[in-house]
């Protein structure tokens, strides 16, 4: 008989192994079923509720043209909700969009499927829903949270808010957050966290106090669930005050009429660590986000333990949780566009699995949307992960000189520049980008350099080609130069040593600033001497090579074309891009203000700086760019970095960068 007190004891002596080579390995040689057949059977067996990418998705559609998304044209008279329109517009504005269904790998319905809707998909490309994705926000309510959409979705994927784990098909559906009609389409607000206050728990128990909306002390949890108007619905009437959320450290996010709730995003933005009490809710983007780093996943069944649980969380952990809420909010949630792009990127990562993001890329700064695995899947190739990996960027740079005027004399500024740059101890290679209409000069006309020197002839001769991610750049750092830039070897050396401390920023010489022109209600650009700056122009700046790739692939063709047509503003656009990634200002080095040979006007293009139109164009650019980014990403800085002994009263011989003092 059984004895409850009996316990396990290790057995001594000889025992057989669980697996014997003869038997189990020959098992594996089951020749009678071909792996191809097996795959075909799978796609036949596992459909509907058991759909997976392997069985319900046609990968071959993505092979020809890459990951392209097609949106069905809108039917006349079809009513589309604002939220759904935002989703469609975001897809159409993204780099994945194609107007040609023959090129598409993924299809999006233009019928409003966000709200529960009757739909009979008589669509020409429906193909039983294969490679279709259906966005849905509102189906499935209490008590059983069924997910009936009112029609047979066939092989289609669901991108759905408040989806339950039971109905969620892992690696096939995408769980998206529930967002309100007011959620901005693009840009999006930053999180509310402004201080990393210590101790951060001013009001740990905020939600326990009598005035809180969600309270578990007075009202039982069951009541909260049953009260359909309580807490998680109808955001406009019931919105928490910003301050109240901000002053709380933890916010309870219970389920309401639906599993997910608007509270979730509100709490996230407010840096109020969500305490999830919604058993069976597949959390938003759970496939890629490690929610343990930004939320407390509670269990409804252990409701009464929640107070002691959150109190047991150490303040170090709270500090990190709160920052992570902000990171995730700004990376994936603060606009409809980000939610949609994240959904598409998740699917793209499944389609190109060997070329997809690791969990670290998704869960650390600057987030997966800015960390493109098609550039590299190696973390060390990005400017963001050096510290996390305990490594350093490659200690040399590649100079790229953008040339638009023909070579006429040996005393031309570009000649001096080339020599000075090549002399830098950190220079690995010099690339001249020949964007001049005249044919390439003969090799011997260039000065001799000790480092490898190559000339690339720009194919289209457009200005954006200076930011192409050339394979010939062997280093992490790029020193970007205009042909008429004046820089000494010492200045190059110093800028590079500074960049090594800030590899994710633009570090360079020519600083500019932006300001809000309230009289004209628009952004202004200034090159005047000011006490602060927010841009460092790429006529003499060092930055990470990855930004070339981002510039070329992340930015929409419309902006790049605009820049190319004007042959202007490419440097401003680069600053917008980098600051939107880092949320930090660039870094200006040394006192140097004049970095150009005074405008000689050798050709019309060289003297673009003297052109009054040029300046007006730059004002326009600022506003066009801010419009596309949906916000002003530039950030001001009030300091510059000088050599430690700069202009100090000590013998010049003791100074390493003494040439920098001679302006």
């Amino acid at each position, binding site marked *: 008989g*059984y004895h409850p007190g009996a316990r396990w004891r290790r057995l001594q002596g000889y025992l057989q192994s*669980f697996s014997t080579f003869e038997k189990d390995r020959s098992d594996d040689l089951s020749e009678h079923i071909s*792996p191809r057949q097996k795959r075909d059977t799978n796609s036949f067996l596992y459909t509907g509720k058991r759909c997976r990418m392997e069985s319900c998705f046609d990968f071959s559609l993505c092979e020809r043209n890459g990951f392209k998304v097609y949106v069905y044209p809108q039917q006349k008279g079809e009513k589309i909700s604002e939220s759904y329109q935002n989703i469609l517009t975001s897809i159409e504005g993204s780099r994945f969009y194609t107007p040609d269904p023959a090129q598409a790998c993924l299809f999006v319905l233009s019928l409003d499927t966000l709200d529960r809707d009757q739909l009979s998909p008589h669509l020409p490309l429906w193909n039983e829903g294969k490679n279709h994705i259906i966005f849905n926000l509102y189906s499935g309510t209490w008590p059983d949270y069924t997910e009936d959409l009112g029609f047979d979705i066939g092989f289609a994927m669901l991108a759905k808010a408040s989806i339950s784990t039971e109905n969620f098909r892992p690696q096939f559906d995408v769980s998206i957050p529930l967002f309100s009609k007011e959620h901005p389409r693009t840009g999006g607000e930053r999180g509310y966290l402004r*201080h990393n206050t210590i101790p951060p728990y001013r009001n740990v128990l905020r939600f326990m106090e009598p005035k809180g909306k969600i309270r578990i002390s007075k009202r039982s949890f069951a009541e909260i669930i049953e009260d359909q108007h309580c807490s998680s619905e109808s955001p406009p009437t019931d919105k928490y005050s910003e301050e109240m959320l901000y002053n709380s450290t933890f916010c309870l996010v219970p389920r309401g009429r639906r599993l997910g709730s608007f509270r979730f995003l509100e709490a996230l933005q407010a840096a109020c660590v969500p305490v999830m009490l919604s058993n069976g809710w597949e959390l938003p983007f759970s496939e890629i986000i490690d929610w343990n780093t930004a939320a407390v996943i509670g*269990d409804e069944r252990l409701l009464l333990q929640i107070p002691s649980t959150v109190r047991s969380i150490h303040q170090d952990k709270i500090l990190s949780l709160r920052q992570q809420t902000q990171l995730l909010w700004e990376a994936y949630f603060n606009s409809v566009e980000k939610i949609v792009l994240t959904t598409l990127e998740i699917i793209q990562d499944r389609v190109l699995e060997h070329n997809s993001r690791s969990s670290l890329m998704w869960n650390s700064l600057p987030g997966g949307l800015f960390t493109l695995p098609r550039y590299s899947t190696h973390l060390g190739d990005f400017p963001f992960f050096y510290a996390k990996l305990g490594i350093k960027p490659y200690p040399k740079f590649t100079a790229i000189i953008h040339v638009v005027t023909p070579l006429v004399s040996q005393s031309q500024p570009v000649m001096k520049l080339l020599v000075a740059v090549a002399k830098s101890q950190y220079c690995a290679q010099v690339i001249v980008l020949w964007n001049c209409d005249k044919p390439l000069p003969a090799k011997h006309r260039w000065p001799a350099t000790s480092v490898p020197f190559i000339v690339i002839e720009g194919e289209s001769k457009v200005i954006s080609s200076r930011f192409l991610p050339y394979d010939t750049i062997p280093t992490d750092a790029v020193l970007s130069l205009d042909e008429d830039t004046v820089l000494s070897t010492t200045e190059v050396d110093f800028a590079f040593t500074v960049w090594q401390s800030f590899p994710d920023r633009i570090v360079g010489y020519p600083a500019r600033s932006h300001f809000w022109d309230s009289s004209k209600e628009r952004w202004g650009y200034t090159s005047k001497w000011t006490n602060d700056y927010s841009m460092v122009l790429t006529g003499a700046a060092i930055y990470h090579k990855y930004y070339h790739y981002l510039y070329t692939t992340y930015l929409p063709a419309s902006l790049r074309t605009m820049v190319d047509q004007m042959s202007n503003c490419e440097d401003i656009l680069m600053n917008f891009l980098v600051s939107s990634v880092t949320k930090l200002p660039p870094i200006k080095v040394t*006192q140097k203000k004049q970095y150009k040979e005074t405008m000689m006007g050798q050709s019309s293009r060289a003297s673009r700086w003297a052109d009054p139109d040029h300046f007006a164009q730059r004002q326009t650019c600022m506003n066009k760019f801010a419009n596309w980014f949906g916000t002003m990403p530039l950030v001001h800085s*009030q300091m510059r970095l000088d*050599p430690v002994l700069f202009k100090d009263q000590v013998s010049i011989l003791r100074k390493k960068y003494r040439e920098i003092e001679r302006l």
Partner: protein
Amino acid sequence: RGASVMYASGKYSSRGPALIPRMKTKHRIYYIALFSVVLLGLIATGMFQFWPHSIESSAEWTLEKGSVHDAPLIRLPASSPIPERGDLSCRMHTCFDVYRCGYNPKNKIKVYIYALQRFVDEFGVPISSTGLSREYNDLLSAISDSDFYTDDVTRACLFIPSIDVLNQNSLRIRETAQALAMLPRWDKGMNHLLFNMLPGGPPDYNTALDVPRDRALLAGGGFSTWTYRQGYDVSIPVYSPLSADVLLPERHPGPRRYFILSSQTAIHREYRAELERLKEENGEALLLLDKCSNLSQGAASARKRCCKGQVYDYPQILQESSFCVVLRGARLGQAALSDVLQAGCVPVILADSYILPFSEVLDWKRASVVIPEEKLSEMYTILKSIPHRQVEEMQRQARWFWEAYFSSMKAIGLTTLQIINDRIYPYAARTYEQWNNPPVVKWSSVNSPLFLPLIPPRAPGFTAVVLTYDRIESLFRVITEISKVPSLAKLLIVWNNQNKSPPEESLWPKVGVPLKVVRTKENKLSNRFFPYDEIETEAVLAIDDDIIMLTSDELQFGYEVWREFPDRLVGYPGRLHLWDHEMGKWKYESEWTNEVSMVLTGAAFYHKYFNYLYTYKMPGDIKNWVDAHMNCEDIAMNFLVANITGKAPIKVTPRKKFKCPECTAIDGLSLDQTHMVERSECINKFASVFGTMPLKVVEHRADPVLYKDDFPEKLKSFPNIGSL
């Protein structure tokens, strides 16, 4: 506002900060009432449930001799109930009884292991052909030796049967299921965990154990996406017995003799043909091995592989290749994966729909390449596109995964339990870094506690903390000077003299911000870095009581720079550490150098969080050492911040003649040779405590944008910089 001087004597020296606000009395009563009700309920349930059992348990039975034949024999009646098949919709919140785990200050689940029994059917035939296997014995023994284990069945949260189901081939399915249902705590399989590595059987090889098991959790090798219940089951490796038999020393990551190696013997002929084609196209870069036809079957054959008559040692040969193919067989999970990882070879996994081992916590993208079976023919091209540096990282990562999670049944078992533990106590779960970073990365990487790029608003200002002993006159001058800084929010005077009282309130300079005095219990240097509750701002300016030469512009500018770098020390006098080759140790340098690696905290801005770290998290005995020697508290702070952020401090504004900034701690000690020697000793001492030299050397300092520019002074934000 006038000056308000407050005395809070001896408040801080004996206890830490009040971490949790006191509960209001009425709430306390409420909680006590609530607690009592819950407690009574628990006691009642406990009495009801466990009373009858406690009588039985007195008859303790143990397996003293430790032989399998001593285990009691249990005869299963043919009519014995059979559990239901596993429910695919099971999740932790539906099929797992979390109340059994309960709140637990250590956040650790308790695991009970059933005593060994031998189950036989009505005719006395055992339910398993092998009985308890060596591996399952190891697994259960490892768990019983771990912190998870409890022998108190009433307190257990998870139950592990001693019925060995690692290999489905050796089981009689129906009888095994009946045996499971006989377990006294089975209760529909609730909270029971089964370990299975070889699921399914011919002809179609199901990807999960076929034994009906009600709601039991399954730790299975070879799950497919259709059988794996995400967040409920645990995907585990198939243990390779070679792990224990063969010692493969770790090889340094780098290029190998072969690019791709295929060493599996049971590869379907369609795939083998495909591999042969790849080999024809790419030649020597590929090595395709098969079993040796001339060797007899058996354990020896497992250790040899052949190619065109040439014999190779397995698994040693795996170390000669950068990538190693792990193809599905009849089953998805392959023991070869373990061998490949052990060899530090990057696995190329071709097994569609396979759930990789421990994929819930391990980031396989950093250790392996997953290619759809369909794309086997493109394997070479895909692998060639991976940068060398990444291949090296993957090699290291692969080896680390094996060492930590694959190398023994103990590793596999405890990892499984830790994953379940993390689900039950998610707020105490192991982090991504803890799971995925090999020790060498854990050691060299930094995860700054202030990682969010934030430029805090100017408005809250900073709190100036002045450490003073008895230099009243100098102190008052410092107070007067600092009070002119626009962003000063509060002055906190740390009175470190126990023999003398601070001056009368009326004698203090009149300043426009609150001024508070705290008296300390002991004259310790670490008092300057205590996280006083009075510091309500993020920014702290630590300043000595004799630093009167800094201008208001310089201090305000320092604060502005700190706002741009809130995770760094931002200070005025800069210092450097150097390696003294002659002496073979570190040296402290205060001369005019082109480099900086420390800023003195005689005048420095920093985040209040670092006060907290200095007081409670300083490694080793550094804090006491500093207090005992009355020196080097600033060096210690520089070490601490650099170590946790991986960043250099920022020196602001040009060098000034500071009146002996090194020697303010002890009055009268001059900047002489012994002092410098002592500070060099500090650096060596701290470097050995930290186990590394965390300080970072930089060649820059921060100046205002228009510093030294030919520009109207009155238009500059910070005109008065650098005057001596």
